């Protein structure tokens, strides 16, 4: 997902540079291509339409035969009903607490580590970095059981600790990608800036916080968004570690909602809509910032 987004940004910056090769094509070919794209777009959007349509219908409208395609009358009531049927406000709060802890921890420790790997010289640095990078390939299943057993032994089950503490160790596991990304960005900042600060008597911490980090805002935003979406979407983590429903996240809450209200599709679609919307909005709001931020400084994946 993250590399996909990154590529999206890169693609956005060039906006069809190779489009030339077909631009002069036959009008008929162009029309066919447009038709295929448009048809595909309709197919891609169909599940979204089905989601919204069902979220606004009563059960009576949903199960009528022959099917009624559009809500009439519109059942807005599904939204308050769904959101109060289970404590979704609480789930949202829990999710945001975890988000705050994980995003802060990931950004801080990953950028600090990336600074060390990109701009400080120490023996064995590149070997250590190489070893860390192998973690990207590791299937999560291999560490899953001992990690769970470990947290259980520490009495940390049904708390947010197993879901948040690893983030403060540079993301642990999946966080390596973030270190890689930030490091690549740091490498593009001229080292003369650090040198000048060192000559003025600054220490590496000051160089990191006052010079390098402020210049790295675009990549920090990107890592923040990746991490935010990752936490929002995580299902297995909360499923393993949270058991009291008061501790549930939105993703876990939605899954249990689904298994409790199996046939109440209006409510289920309303709840799903509420879980999907923030991520889609986030994408639309930050898409521009993304493209611009990455364009300015030119990340190379």
């Amino acid at each position, binding site marked *: *997902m993250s590399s*996909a987004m990154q*590529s*999206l940004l*890169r*693609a*956005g910056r*060039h906006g*069809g540079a*190779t*489009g*030339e*090769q*077909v*631009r002069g*094509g036959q009008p008929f070919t162009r029309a066919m*291509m447009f038709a295929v*794209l448009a048809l595909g*777009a309709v197919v*891609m*959007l*169909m*599940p979204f339409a*089905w989601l919204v349509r*069902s979220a606004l219908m009563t059960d009576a409208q949903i199960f009528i035969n022959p*099917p009624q395609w559009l809500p009439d009358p519109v059942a807005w009531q599904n939204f308050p009903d769904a959101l109060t049927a289970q404590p979704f406000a609480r789930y949202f709060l829990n999710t945001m607490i975890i988000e705050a802890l994980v995003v802060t921890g990931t950004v801080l*420790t990953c950028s600090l580590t990336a600074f*060390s*790997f990109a701009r*400080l010289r*120490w023996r064995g*640095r590149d070997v*250590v970095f190489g070893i860390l990078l192998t973690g990207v390939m590791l*299937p999560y*299943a*291999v*560490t899953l*059981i*001992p990690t769970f*057993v*470990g947290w259980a032994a520490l009495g940390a089950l049904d708390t947010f600790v197993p879901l948040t503490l*690893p983030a*403060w*160790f540079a*993301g*642990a596991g999946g*966080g390596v990608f973030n*270190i890689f990304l930030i490091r690549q960005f740091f490498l593009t900042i001229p080292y003369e800036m650090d040198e000048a600060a060192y000559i003025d008597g600054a220490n590496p911490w000051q160089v*990191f916080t006052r010079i390098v980090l402020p210049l790295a805002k675009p990549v920090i935003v990107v890592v923040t968004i990746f991490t935010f979406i990752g936490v*929002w*979407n995580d299902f*297995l983590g909360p499923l393993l570690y949270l058991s009291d429903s008061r501790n549930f996240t939105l*993703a876990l809450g939605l*899954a249990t909602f*689904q298994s409790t209200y199996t046939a109440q599709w209006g409510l*289920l*679609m309303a709840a*799903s809509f509420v*879980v999907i919307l923030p991520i*889609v909005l986030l994408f639309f709001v930050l898409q521009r910032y993304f493209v611009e931020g990455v364009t300015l400084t030119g990340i190379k994946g």
Partner: protein
Amino acid sequence: MGRAEARWGVLFAMPAILGFAIFTIGPMVASFVFSLTDWTVGATPRFIGVDNYRAMVDDPLFWKSLGVTTYYTLAAVPIALVVGFVVAMLVNAGWRRQSVWRTIYYLPTLVPAVASAVLWIWIFNPDSGLFNSVLRALGLPTSNWIYSESTAVPSLIIMSTWGFGNAMVIFLAGLQGVPRHLYEAVALDGGGAWAKFWHVTLPFMTPVIFYNLVTGVIGTFQVFNQAYIMTSGGPNNATLFYIYYLYTQAFTDSQMGYASALAWVLFLIVLVITAALFRNARSWVYYEAGGAR
């Protein structure tokens, strides 16, 4: 600076080094040790050597889960690659509003996995779901989708294809790197659109195809959410994905030892596949002289 710089360097890298030791290396070693034991939660682990691995050979569900996962991978990955590539080419064809197309095709990948699962259960609903409603309206035969043994995995493949936008944006980024002057060279030689595609676009895109292939295979081998939320591995184990089987062994049946052995076998399988793909890549992945990627 010298020595002081080295001290700062190690200090700053400490979160990652500790994190790797605590959350990756430690659990990996522990997982391997667990895999050599007979350990039900609550009981004392008993060392049994490689018996867990031997037991897998005679475990029909292990083979079933491997088969289901392989089937899914072999269909879902190539479909996502082909569709993603074709759509990326179409989107890249110099439209004035390219970003609109890109956004529409990328949108489904933003849907959180749980919400996507809930939505697709409803789409696949045999009575009033989207698919059967449309098929009925068109007078076509309907299907039981995820509720029938033979169509369950194909249904999940259809669902995964909805998310091909991931592969597409990576292809789209790759297409920006194809040198345009080569198209002009082909045109000068009298080559048409097909020649441009075959002799320029495709060779230059092989590293990107390879990247999508490797990440795709690693991803599909670790499918879990769909099996847990949508099908519970059924009907009749038709969607018993490998990780789902591992999960039920560990957290439903409390067989921590056996589940750890399953985890290590998965690790080895992914390792071997990845190594094989990399080896095989030498014969078809084209890298520009000077190593642009």
